[in-house]
């Protein structure tokens, strides 16, 4: 099986291609982003400093000048520390999909208490979200956690809008996470609405759906920008964790995103089990690219099965009201993808030039432009 000579993505990764040196196009994408954003160079830091100054300026006279999405995880927790360090006045915003674990809530509590940052939370109705999750499960698609990701984006916008804030800081880092293949994780409002309409039973009332109209409202009318500081500055996840642990007793839960039980189920069981997707290759590949991990070691770790909490499956089945056999039956069904359902994809593709401009202005993330508007399905 062909694998990238540099990172550990192999031919199973959707839309992958290799150049004459055997290096994959995802590595090339990361290199390109690195150049664009001058990551971890004085030029990059200067760019970031300029943005921070602008945020302060635009936020004068208001209670908060930026919104930082928090989940209790490393990136968002560290992001808040940085925001405070830079002299910003952030409002922390959290989307509670009612599947949080105590680690998440405790970490959020500790970080916010230490930094004296206010919290805005949006809690979706538990029965409603379970119905939405279940419809994705029954739709045989990998994006069972897509509704969470999109809802978070919408909640951050709402929190920003409510307080007249024009900037959202996101803790995403292509250096530590790479660029995820679109076919693994696609989400937009039309996709969620169609899947829910087909397989759901309860009306969507409290779920914060970002449809195209809302999307345009946020970027064109409210002009709320998304900044990803870790794209400009040097960011090492291990160091960040050590710092957080020491400074406010933050707790690391082994593995990516395991503060939320739906995400845990998704990463540790659902994606590997039904789609053969093991998302650990994202962060492992990123660690290899940035030289933090050897390719050998990354492959070694990747070959070990992902960690899973006891009775996580039982919890999932119970909440979604699935019998053991119904659960098994659906798990064994052939996978489908976002291409099988109505989405905004073709609309995004048509608007490619428009979104390029938006990305340049930080109104949408550059990775959104790269993945969602491309016809080659990267």
């Amino acid at each position: 099986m062909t694998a990238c000579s540099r990172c550990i993505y192999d031919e199973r990764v959707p839309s992958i291609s290799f150049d004459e040196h055997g290096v994959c196009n995802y590595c090339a994408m990361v290199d390109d982003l690195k150049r664009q954003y001058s990551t971890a160079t004085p030029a990059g830091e200067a760019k970031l400093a300029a943005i921070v100054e602008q945020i302060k300026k635009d936020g004068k006279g208001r209670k908060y000048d930026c919104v930082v999405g928090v989940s209790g995880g490393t990136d968002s927790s560290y992001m808040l520390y940085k925001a405070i360090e830079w002299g910003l006045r952030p409002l922390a915003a959290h989307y509670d999909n009612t599947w949080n674990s105590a680690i998440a809530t405790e970490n959020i509590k500790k970080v916010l208490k230490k930094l004296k940052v206010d919290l805005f939370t949006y809690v979706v109705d538990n029965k409603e979200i379970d119905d939405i999750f279940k419809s994705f499960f029954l739709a045989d698609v990998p994006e069972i956690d897509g509704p969470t990701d999109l809802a978070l984006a919408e909640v951050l916008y709402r929190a920003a809008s409510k307080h007249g804030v024009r900037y959202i800081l996101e803790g995403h880092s292509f250096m530590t996470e790479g660029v995820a293949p679109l076919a693994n994780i696609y989400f937009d409002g039309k996709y969620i609405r169609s899947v829910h309409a087909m397989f759901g039973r309860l009306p969507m009332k409290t779920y914060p759906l970002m449809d195209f109209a809302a999307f345009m409202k946020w970027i064109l009318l409210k002009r709320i920008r998304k900044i990803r500081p870790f794209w400009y500055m040097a960011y090492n996840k291990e160091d960040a964790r050590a710092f957080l642990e020491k400074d406010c007793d933050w707790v690391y839960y082994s593995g990516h995103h395991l503060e939320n039980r739906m995400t845990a189920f998704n990463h540790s069981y659902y994606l590997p089990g039904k789609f053969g997707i093991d998302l650990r290759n994202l962060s492992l590949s990123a660690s290899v690219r940035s030289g933090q991990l050897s390719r050998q070691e990354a492959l070694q770790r990747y070959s070990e099965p992902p960690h899973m909490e006891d009775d996580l499956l039982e919890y999932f089945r119970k909440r979604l009201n699935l019998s053991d056999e119904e659960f098994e039956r659906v798990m064994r069904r052939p996978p489908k993808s976002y291409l099988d359902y109505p989405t905004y994809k073709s609309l995004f593709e048509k608007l490619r030039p428009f979104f390029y401009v938006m990305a340049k202005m930080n109104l949408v993330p550059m990775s959104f432009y790269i993945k969602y508007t491309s016809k080659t399905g990267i």
Partner: protein
Amino acid sequence: MTMLRPRVIPCLLLNDESLVKTVKFGAYTYIGDPVNTVRIFNELEVDELAFLDITASRQSRRPNFKILEDIANECFMPLAYGGGICDIDDVGKIFGIGFEKVVINSHAIRNPAFITQVADKYGSQSVIGSIDARKNLWGRYEVFTHGGTSKDSRNPLEWAQELERLGAGELLLTSMDQDGTWAGYDIKLTQSVTSKVNVPVIANGGAGTVRHIGDVVKKGGASAAAVGSIVVFQGKGLGVLVSFPSKQELKDCLA
């Protein structure tokens, strides 16, 4: 000397199948999924949990056994349930599911002998007599029932003594005025009751800081403090966040 630490008990309100939090028994905010929240509290190893179903109480409906079962399966600490309890068979069912105590409010007023019936069959430690009290225009305390929607007018102190006499092993004393205000418990009300009864009293309504918990125990004589807003919100007027004071914080405030 005794090492019996006063208990701090998250008191969670059920509205249909969702968790909510009220202010002065009025407007409520949606908090989240009951079972997941309970799971978090179990992970945080809280002392005890109390669940009050406010719809069952207001609409005189029977308990939602399915949810109670899901909740009991997640917990390895004592659980109390209240809301619309008026049937001895329902009580038996609730205990069988895995709850230790039932909280009886409105029905005790309607049929005081019910308290004795439950206490005789299952032991007084299984019955918590619940009193919701509010001050009237003249500053006198009055008892309310049905989730605070119906005034009974009797005096909470006398009613507390009566409940003890009837067999309640514990009392849950809630100040409706302080509920959801973050301003502290009604120490005076609590003290007036604890000084006159021999059973443990759980103070409820108004906790905003860990200090308040210490106060109601030390100055109010409460054996336990029920907490609501403080464990489901980051702070007054701030976002939903499920948490519990740390062991150190509790040790310090109760010292």
